[in-house]
């Protein structure tokens, strides 16, 4: 992947707007304590259920906590859990997929069977089962999401390597005496990287939704740590009384996920790898 591609993606109108939003959310997550005068976990029950105002831009929640503050801290949870989970998933998926494609034989068959099996279940189901086993909380959610998406990256990497394996430049490298590790690390994986990274980008959007879903069921970050899904869940019971408690986290999740998808699309166009992605799916 050329270094200029992420920048080129920003030049497209949709990619630019999306990139701006994502940068904003990421910045807010990193600089959370500097951006807001409120604490995310201190209850002020007398100030509960306040509608948006000058003091509380997005209103207060059922415990009188500032909603914007919780949304910003929630970005920390949601983004870090989703991004870390996908990073783990990509790393493990690439190793597994590359090894399966490269070594072939019974190892390849075993990996393919397991991957296809998990691929046939919806991610949410796998994640729910895993969280039930590991236990609720951010670590559990992270592991659950990374396992849920493992199949996708394993398949994608395997498909990339399988096509690249027969190319003449690999043949050339081998005849020059290059070993397995050298060919895999220096020739195959770099060439397979672009589509994997783009699909990781798109999967992060899905992972944010999955994290929010687990949070909505109360299985994600445990209170008082805010997460977007947990906030929506609390708000869903209060939708008539204080609709802002569910609306703002909901909008944030929606806009962030759309932004990730738009930027991902822009990146695909900039890299011109649409065909490669289609082949793997």
């Amino acid at each position, binding site marked *: 992947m050329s270094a200029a591609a992420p920048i080129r993606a920003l030049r497209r109108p949709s990619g630019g707007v999306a990139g701006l939003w994502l940068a904003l959310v990421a910045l807010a997550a990193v600089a959370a304590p500097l951006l807001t005068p409120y604490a995310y976990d201190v*209850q002020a*029950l*007398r100030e*509960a259920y306040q509608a948006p105002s000058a003091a509380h831009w997005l209103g207060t929640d*059922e*415990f009188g906590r500032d909603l914007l503050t919780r949304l910003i801290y929630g970005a920390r949870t949601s983004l870090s859990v989703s991004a870390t989970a996908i990073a783990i998933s990509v790393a493990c998926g690439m190793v597994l997929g590359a090894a399966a494609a490269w070594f072939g034989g019974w190892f390849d068959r075993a990996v393919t069977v397991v991957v296809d099996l998990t691929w046939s279940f919806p991610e949410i189901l796998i994640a729910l089962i895993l969280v*039930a086993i590991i*236990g*609720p*909380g951010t670590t559990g959610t992270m592991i659950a999401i990374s396992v849920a998406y493992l199949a996708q990256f394993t398949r994608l990497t395997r498909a990339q390597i399988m096509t690249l394996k027969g190319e003449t430049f690999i043949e050339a490298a081998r005849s020059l005496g290059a070993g397995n590790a050298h060919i895999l690390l220096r020739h195959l994986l770099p060439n397979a990287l672009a589509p994997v990274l783009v699909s990781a980008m798109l999967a992060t959007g899905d992972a944010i939704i999955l994290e929010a879903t687990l949070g909505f*069921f*109360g*299985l994600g970050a*445990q*209170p*008082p740590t805010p997460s977007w899904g947990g906030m929506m*869940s*609390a708000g*869903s*019971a*209060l*939708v*008539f*009384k204080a609709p802002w408690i569910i609306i703002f986290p909901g909008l944030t999740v929606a806009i962030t996920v759309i932004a990730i998808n738009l930027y991902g699309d822009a990146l695909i166009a900039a890299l011109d790898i649409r065909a490669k992605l289609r082949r793997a799916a």
Partner: protein
Amino acid sequence: MTFPFRKTLLSASVSLAALFAGAAVMAQEAVFVLNTSEVGAPTYNPIKATNLNKATTLIFDRLVSQAADLSYHPWLAESWEEAPDGMAWTFHLKKGVKFHNGEPFNANTVKEWLELFKASENAYMTEAVAEVQVIDDATVKFVMSRPEPNLLYNLSSSYMSVIEPKSYKELGDNYGVTEVYGTGPFKLESFAIGQETVLTRNDDYTWGSPLSKNTGPAKIAKITFREIAEDSTAFLELKTGGVDMLLGVPADLIGEVKKEANLAVLTMPGQDVYYMPINVTKPPFDDIKVREAAAKAINQEEILASVFGGIGSVADTFLISALPEGHVPDADKIHYDPVRANALLDEAGWKMGANGVREKDGQPLKVSLWTQSDSIFRRLTEVVQAQLKAVGIEAEITTFDSSMIRDQYKTGEQQLAVRSYNWDNADIVDWFFGGDRLGYPNVSMFNDPKAEELRAKAMTGSKNMEERVANFTAYHDYVLTQFPMAPIYQPVDAVAYNADHLVLPDTINAPGIGPVAIMDMEVKE
């Protein structure tokens, strides 16, 4: 190609006819939504069920009915006498009562029905009855193995709904699922587990409980009970006219219902208690001082006001306030007392640390706090967490799916939890604190020799009601002084209904909305 056209025309006229027919019977029909806690009840078999929904109480009658003041009144039993030593009860049964399948109700029915309880899920209901003697067609005598002052309560419970023994034996496990026969004011027309139950009026019914004005056939001809798991969805259905009544409305929705001009709310004393079990076996809670401190850190008034909008009342004992066994000495009631909580923790060696969390020997006072995934529990638990933090106890919340949390309790790993129960008899103290039920239901893992002694006396050593009340009060009082839990809140039972469509009776002489209320209910023409 005229055929498709004609078919369309035909189906259009058919649906039009259905529409008119629907409008004609609309007037006598009603759609109720079951309380969310009753969603998914798998059977209408009272002998084997551990969760029965409200529709059960319309399909079956009971021998005894209970009034709003918890006193007992005739129903299928017209009168009864208890032997002075409590070792026998004689019931005189109403004559002319018939089951939905035409079978008569008489003394033999009662004998056969009670025998079915043996080795069933609800065997404890009839445990003290040694033998049922048929004196004549309308008289039965229960010979007791020990005095059971709680017998009338058991007989008034929906788990002692009188079933039809013949079909019960024939249908086996299908009884209560595919077919069910009782003597009640409504017959089962259809039942889809977790979805809906349709009941139609029993036109032969003339033996209603004297607690309702109408003892003849019900005024409503057909009732559909729908099961909706989410309270806010059920409320939307009520608001948009899809249903006529919600049989359970959580406190935080009552205000929203009252905002609607056509909707009304009826509240009655509730039978739920919210509380925080404290696992007495897990350090630091093996120290009674720490238990008392945690219990007295809970600010019940603040929770009532902020979480439940001031609707309902605070709980300061383990029992609902309607029960006489709840009248323990004021000093033993558990109230918010931050000064005492802090002093006790200091005394126990837990000194306030720099970050607001207490420490002892370098260890922070960190404990686990379990809750279930229903939104009301999650909200309540976060407030409890903040209140514990105020005295220096850091509680980490773990949320479990409501259907799985009982299995989690069985591991005994919990320290603190927030939960609730629904029961209107003092024997619930035995259920949740009995030393032979550690884990679940005894979430507190409480097993105390003195408590066991008082428990045995309360459960089986009472000859009459006064003795039972005294024994249970003593047992309950002792349990409170050991702080295996902190009482939090007592909700009200609230139903919301469409006042344009339903007319509810002015007074309901029953502990909750059930057959007594529904018999007097009318649909507006």
